[in-house]
């Protein structure tokens, strides 16, 4: 018997923004990234940390926004989301 298994994996494309000290660390202010469907903010952080170990150290102090609203780490990302990593703000 022939068994053909087809694994279909949805991907989601997002835009990721980095500011201030985080931009300096990552080396860019903006990236397009592709994640697995259902990925959360935590998954995105893991992905970035896998590329750059020092991102792991900075991550706990960062706020994250999705489409310009602050979110928690368990927020699920959607196709086309604009995600931003926001170091402790110091405007004013």
């Amino acid at each position, binding site marked *: 018997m022939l068994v053909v298994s087809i694994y279909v994996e949805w991907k989601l494309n997002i835009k990721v923004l980095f500011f*201030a000290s985080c931009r300096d660390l990552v080396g860019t202010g903006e990236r397009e990234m592709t994640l697995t469907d259902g990925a959360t903010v935590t998954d995105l952080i893991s992905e970035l940390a896998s590329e750059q170990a020092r991102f792991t150290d900075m991550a706990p102090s960062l706020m994250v926004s999705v489409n310009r609203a602050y979110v928690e780490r368990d927020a699920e990302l959607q196709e086309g989301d604009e995600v931003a990593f926001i*170091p*402790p*703000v*110091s405007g004013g």
Partner: protein
Amino acid sequence: MAADVYKIQDNEIKPDALYNAVLADSNGAVTTFAGVVRDNTKGRGTSYLVYDAYREMAEKKMREIGDEVKDKWEVDCVGILHRVGRLKIGEISVLIAISSPHRKASLEACHYAIDRLKQTVPIWKKEVWTDGGEAWIEGDPSALVSR
């Protein structure tokens, strides 16, 4: 016609930039707060500052502060400007002006608005010191617990 203003801008902010925008005939008070580039931080000489902002979100969060202020106090119009880029000593980095029929509301609301701006609005300051050092300044992360 008095109107709210929430804007990130590159060019110079004048101290009276918001006054006429927020003032209506029914107002008896306008309180204005100007944040200015100081020549030192705890005694270390400042050469200049660089402000960076997540512009679209910053303007959105400033509007949220204005809405919050209007919920809490009987104020009429709220204006918030924040500058980005390189700023010299004595230049205005942030300007908040709030109009109200009676003085207490605009005074309290203006104090609240600048405190809130420093907690929630995605803007960052880099200090460049006269001794050649420079660093992005980071606020208190705990301030963001209540967003």
